[in-house]
């Protein structure tokens, strides 16, 4: 590992009984970058985070965080990290301010420093007004923000976020994304686990796709998208007779051969520039006099990624996979909204 590497893991193996939660995981994150750990429930993401945060010892393999070995220098690792868990580990009988003050004191700050830092974080996380209320009365989003603030008390160079947006409404997600982006702007290295491809896409510089305790793909979000197939333009025509013409139009716009499902009169094609292709498709179809029943852009979901990478859908329960896909689509909408705002 070089000095530019903030997080690295080599051949991590961890078994729980017969279950190989991690089966030779390799990870690497450069300083000041975001590494996204993408995978379905039970893929091993949380186990990896627990090892990197010294909560769990691997059966074999090695890992280091901020230049310190997780196994031999656990305390040095703990001084360099902030952890925000999957479920917000705030003490609900303490106020937000007391929670942050306590964490500051336990990082070794003196009383005035811990008090000052708690105040700064409450303001920065829009908890200033709620700061002196007991956390039991906080909404899910507020608790998550408080938990995230707790991870940043000591301004650690490395922050590990285990599914920071799971269970949040779209607005809460957007708030969390903004906070993470700000964190990275300040030079913090972030390891982020997520079930949502869009989230990894929006936040992570490099993404490791993890399944059954193994990293099955690794790369930038563009590389991964290329692997998955990027966005697809999808439309349903009114008349079955118009399908051939529509397919010709799509072939001219997309990057590959359109997929045609005659039964549902649905056509799909991979596209490079989503919104431009969409406008173009609508224009061409209109000029050809084809009545379109439904037209839209379809972003690759985690299911699509797994389908491309493993040749089989995510192997959570059927429900879990569906819920994950539905969540991803919700995010896609929210994200395009934000992109629109930036342009």
């Amino acid at each position, binding site marked *: 590992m070089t000095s530019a590497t903030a997080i690295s893991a080599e051949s991590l193996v961890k078994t729980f009984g017969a279950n190989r939660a991690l089966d030779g995981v390799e990870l690497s994150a450069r300083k000041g970058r975001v590494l996204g750990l993408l995978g379905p429930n039970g893929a091993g993401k949380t186990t990896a985070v627990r090892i990197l945060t010294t909560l769990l010892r691997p059966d074999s393999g090695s890992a280091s965080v901020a230049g310190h070995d997780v196994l031999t220098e656990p305390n040095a690792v703990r001084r360099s990290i902030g952890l925000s868990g999957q479920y917000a580990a705030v003490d609900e*009988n303490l106020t937000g301010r007391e929670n942050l003050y306590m964490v500051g004191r336990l*990082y070794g700050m003196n009383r005035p420093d811990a008090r000052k830092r708690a105040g700064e974080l409450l303001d920065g996380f829009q908890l200033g007004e709620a700061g002196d209320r007991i956390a039991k009365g906080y909404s899910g989003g507020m608790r998550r923000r408080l938990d995230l603030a707790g991870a940043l008390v000591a301004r650690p160079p490395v922050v590990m976020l285990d599914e920071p947006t799971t269970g949040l409404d779209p607005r809460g997600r957007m708030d969390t994304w903004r906070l993470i982006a700000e964190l990275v702007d300040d030079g913090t290295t972030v390891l982020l686990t997520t079930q949502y491809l869009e989230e990894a896409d929006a936040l992570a510089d490099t993404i490791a796709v993890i399944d059954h305790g193994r990293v099955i793909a690794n790369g930038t979000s563009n590389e991964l998208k290329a692997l998955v197939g990027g966005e697809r333009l999808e439309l349903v025509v009114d008349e079955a007779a118009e399908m051939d013409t529509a397919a010709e139009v799509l072939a001219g716009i997309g990057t590959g051969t359109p997929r045609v499902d005659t039964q549902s009169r649905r056509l799909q094609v991979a596209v490079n520039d989503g919104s431009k292709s969409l406008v173009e498709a609508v224009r061409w179809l209109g000029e050809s006099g084809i009545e379109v029943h439904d037209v839209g852009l379809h972003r690759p979901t985690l299911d699509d990624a797994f389908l491309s990478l493993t040749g089989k859908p995510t192997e959570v329960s059927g429900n879990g996979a569906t819920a994950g896909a539905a969540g991803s689509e919700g995010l896609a909408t929210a994200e395009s909204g934000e992109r629109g705002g930036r342009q």
Partner: protein
Amino acid sequence: MTVVPSSLRDSSVVAWRNLLNIKRNPDWLLSGTVQPIMFVLLFAFVFGGSLGGGRYREFLIAGIFVQTVAFNSSFTVIGLTNDLQKGIVDRFRALPMSRVAVLLGRTSSDLAVSLLSVVIMSLCGLLIGWRLRGDPTDVLTGYLVLLLFSFAMSWVGAFIGLISRTVEVAQSAGLLWLFPVTFISSVFVSAESMPTPLRVFARWNPITVNADALRELFGNPIRVGTPPPSSWPAEHAIPYAVVSSLLIIAVFVPLSVARYRRVASR
């Protein structure tokens, strides 16, 4: 910063947090305050009449003190398992804080709860005729012996909390073992009338010896209705009480800390 002060500072932060929790949920104190009053009144008046009246009540109170602080160890079990279940222990374990602080903070805040129980029981005892007849130094020593024992039992509770697989198991395990241990003792009746195996257990039981030590220091009757016991522990009640508490601490602190290092969140 040296190791000892930072672990004490971390422990005091955790204890502060635990006491804030209790302050905000005073119903947690119900069993720490109402139960001792109930025990004092129940045993004093249900058993008292047939076992020696006023003299029995005076004999009983020190035993109830010891039994109550022993039962207070279940607060340690419940407090720790709650923190484990809510992921708060994970947050603590990922912080660069002392490995003993979560446990020492917990046993310290539970010691404060026990102190409250002892104050309430003392007032309740005074109301029903119990008197402190020893000189003030002895009385103070008695209370210190009692609190040391309470602290030791709390560490047993910490260990039970850490080895239990679920909160439910922890709660029943944390209470269950206390019944035989507190009843096979001289808390309520003299151990001398018990069958041999129980008598031997009762004689050496730290509960018995702490109760005897307290009675001696408070100037209360050591036995009612039976001749005074003549075993070695009974004749050296005060030093044996202190040594047994120190031994329990010496065994359960390292066991619990070792367990804490490995414990997985539930």
